[in-house]
């Protein structure tokens, strides 16, 4: 398996680096993983010298895989499409534990205290909760939404302060808050009629607002977790009113949305625009025309710029929005199928997966120069260990 894309000498080098890692003390602040979606493997990467340290194989179907980190930032929990939940030791570059917990999954989250890992499943529709250390099952929350027992696909699962998880029911148009204060007996609060087909969601960096993007209608659903009694409110209703929707060849993502000062940036659905929301009042401030259907809309950590990638047929392009002028300031073409972008914690570098070029590119975010290009087998998501310390990541 190791030799799939890696020439023998690199494998040997990785092995040596790996063995070296075992015998040396190091932190994980500059480590991360890159998902190799087709091979079912991940690369452990290091951002100081911009290199791969190890390849970990045997993770199953990693299409649409995502990851969260343990609170000590040593372990990455990788959520695979096939229901696999794999706990990877990024220091030792190996699988610590792995279970297959459902038939079809979409993502997961880790609780504020790091004790529980939650996975959102399409099949069977619902959320399953596991002990973060042992991956032993702790609780199950079936997303049953009608009297006949139908279960919804679950999307937009995030952690919220107070050992809670918040998620959306795609088929039912609902948002649920699960309180895991008593892990074996989750308390669920349900909000119905939140909008048509929530497809993904995010939580603001301080953990107060949960915002679900709606596929079935123009608009977003907003829940204030400080004041849940006020219910879910629709924001930016009908942002595409009167315009014919353009084809969406890839669903946008809400995770990693951009909050820059009072402004939030989100992808429009079916329009080649990034929507700018004023967080004072949650109304539309501007719409920024971009080259295609936005997929990820990510703020550089200093919030001075917002980087955007796109669905087919514009998925070779990244556009950068200047937050001061609210206009595109730069267009880059890293290569075929730019799937994901991840900034280093302080934002001096951005790591970009270029799937169809089998490469991860690293750019300097001040000069926009390419600093490195790492070989990777059909790379998709990039998840740096600094995510361990952020609410909602």
């Amino acid at each position, binding site marked *: 398996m190791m030799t799939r894309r890696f020439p023998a000498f690199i494998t040997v080098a990785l092995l040596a680096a790996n063995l070296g890692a075992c015998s040396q003390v190091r932190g994980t602040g500059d480590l991360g993983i890159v998902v190799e979606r*087709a091979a079912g493997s991940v690369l452990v990467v290091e951002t100081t010298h911009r290199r791969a340290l190890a390849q970990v194989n045997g993770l199953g*179907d990693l*299409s649409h895989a995502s990851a969260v980190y343990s609170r000590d930032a040593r372990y990455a929990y990788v959520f695979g*499409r*096939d229901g696999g939940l794999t706990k990877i030791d990024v220091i030792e570059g190996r699988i610590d534990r792995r279970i297959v917990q459902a038939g*079809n999954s979409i993502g997961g989250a880790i609780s504020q205290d790091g004790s529980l890992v939650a996975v959102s499943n399409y099949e069977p529709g619902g959320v399953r909760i596991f002990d973060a250390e042992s991956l032993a099952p702790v609780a199950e929350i079936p997303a049953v939404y009608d009297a006949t027992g139908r279960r919804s696909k679950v999307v937009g699962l995030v952690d919220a302060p107070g050992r809670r998880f918040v998620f959306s029911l795609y088929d039912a148009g609902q948002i649920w808050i699960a309180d895991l204060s008593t892990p074996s007996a989750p308390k669920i609060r349900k909000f119905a009629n939140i909008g048509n087909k929530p*497809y993904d969601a995010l939580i603001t960096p301080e953990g107060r607002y949960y915002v679900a993007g709606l596929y079935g209608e123009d608009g977003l659903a907003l829940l204030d977790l400080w004041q849940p009694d006020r219910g879910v409110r629709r924001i930016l209703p009908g942002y595409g009113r009167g315009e014919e929707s353009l084809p969406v060849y890839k669903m946008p993502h809400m995770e990693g949305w951009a909050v820059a000062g009072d402004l939030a940036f989100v992808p429009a659905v079916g329009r080649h625009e990034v929507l700018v929301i004023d967080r004072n009042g949650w109304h539309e401030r501007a719409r920024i025309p971009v080259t295609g259907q936005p997929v990820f809309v990510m703020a550089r950590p200093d919030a001075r710029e917002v980087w955007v990638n796109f669905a087919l047929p514009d998925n070779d392009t990244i556009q950068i929005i200047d937050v001061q002028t609210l206009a595109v300031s730069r267009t880059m073409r890293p290569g075929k199928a730019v799937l994901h972008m991840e900034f280093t914690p302080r934002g001096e570098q951005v790591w970009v997966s270029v799937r*169809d070029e089998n490469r991860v590119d690293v750019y300097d975010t001040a000069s926009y120069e390419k600093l490195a290009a790492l070989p990777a087998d059909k790379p998709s998501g990039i998840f740096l260990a600094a995510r361990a310390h952020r609410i909602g990541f």
Partner: protein
Amino acid sequence: MASRFWMVLATALWSLACVAELPAERQAQLRHLLSHDCGSCHGLRLTGGLGPPLTPTTLAGKDSPALATIIRHGVPGTPMPPWKAIISDEEARWLAEFMKGTSHDRSTGP
């Protein structure tokens, strides 16, 4: 309804015609598109995700022209987009056959 009738008729007539084999290079591109781009909703192994599974078992009994119509025109009210700007009718029919596994061995895929 009238336009739908003509679409169905045209599709039916097309199905009677012999489908020319696509160039090998285009076939490879379509297999790649299927795994990686269709796969973002239907799963890398087409076992389903936000969209339904597209395995030979689940597609058994569905006819290729109808599947090609779905590929080309999408499913209104769902995230399935119309692919007609990217995939021709002939290519959509090839994809349908390929997914059903009736004319191509899946193991030769990427």
